[in-house]
């Protein structure tokens, strides 16, 4: 079993920013991602009560290290100012690096 090192980018943000993020991914030719709704608390207060639009979403993207800086840069530039958002990067090993 050979595992190849790639990066996992995770973005936790308000649900209404999900579309923006997926567009940014698309712009960088990344079409694979996983999303799910979450609740949370942070600088912009408790999220997850109230209307569905006020929930958070997590977007997880496995990608090669080369693409990471550009994607991260664009997300932070366009979304950090106006949206509740947290972004982090971790290391994962995959079997089929050509998928990403």
């Amino acid at each position, binding site marked *: 079993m050979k595992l190849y090192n790639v990066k996992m980018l995770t973005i936790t943000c*308000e649900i*209404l*920013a999900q*579309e*923006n993020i997926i567009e940014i991914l698309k712009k960088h030719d990344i079409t694979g991602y996983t999303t799910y709704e979450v609740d949370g608390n942070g600088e912009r207060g408790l999220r997850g*009560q*109230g*209307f*569905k*639009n*006020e929930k958070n979403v997590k977007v997880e993207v496995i990608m090669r290290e080369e693409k990471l800086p550009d994607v991260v840069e664009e997300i932070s530039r366009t979304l950090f*100012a*106006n*949206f509740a958002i947290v972004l982090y990067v971790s290391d994962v090993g995959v079997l089929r690096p050509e998928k990403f």
Partner: protein
Amino acid sequence: MEILELIQSNLLTPIILFFLFGIIAARIKSDLKIPEAISEFLPIYLLAAIGLHGGIEMRNTGFENMLIPMLVAIGLSLLFTLNHYQILRRLGKFNLFDSYALASTYGAVGAVHFSVGLSFLKNQGVTSEGYIAAILAVLEPLAFILAIFMTNMAVSKQIKAKKQSFTDADSTEIDIGLNQTKTKISKVLHESITGKAIVILLGSIVIGYIIGEEGFESIKIVFDDMFTGAIVIFMIEMGIIAGQRLDDIKKVGIFLTAFAIIMPLFNGTIGTLVATALGLSVGGAVMFGLLMASASFIAAPAVLRHAIPQAKPSLYITSALGITFPFNIIVTLPILFTISTFVHNGEGTIDLFNFITKGF
């Protein structure tokens, strides 16, 4: 006096009581909550019921007379939105983004308001013109589109101004910025028009028109008889969400609180009078006025968060849901009903029309 009695009797209907109950439940920090799937489904159901009802009415009564009220509603909505902007920006000293977002929140219409209004009229034994549901559908995206357009104009101007003071190297980036702005407008436009509220409402109006009362028979129990019960359940959740937001009202400030009470009352009164002048029935004029008085708190965030992300949702959602909505369904609605009843009895329409145009 009569108004106070009407307000009181309205206050004691299940719809209002369960809304107040929801607020209390939230304030005492109860874990009571309508599951998300139910509270997401209910607006769809309510809009389908409203639409079917409107469509069937339109089939019965025709919709030739609908054009003028529709155009007047559009005109009033745009006028009100611009008026809100001026008030908020100049008197309220809100920034450009918050001003436009709030202006359009209050220029837009609210489907929950509409549902409560229909129930209120049912309770009073009064009917309204079916085509007002169509007006609701058309007004839905209108104020947003205007606000988005204006905001983007303003932002473009700012960007262009910057452009002239920059070197050529930067100007490509600014061009991209401008282009992005344009794509954004067309995207938000598409999103507004294909938003679930409009789509289900328009679709149901058309279907109601096609099937008529006869075709409606088999689904009447679900889409008519259960209507008020369904609103009651929805109002519990609305109350809970409003209650959770009451703390945020401090952030809203006195100016916006006053705005959130006075503006709807003003817009609603104008709307009711204008509708009466246009020949709408007692109930129709109330619904027309309520549309003008209503503020949007479900559709607004979905559109505005994308269109004007710089605006603070805590301002526009809190004021619309936490202040205006309760005020409207408890106070404005009976007032509009009293006004409408009053001006429909005796007074001539022409005088009224003069009165309104003067009042402007």
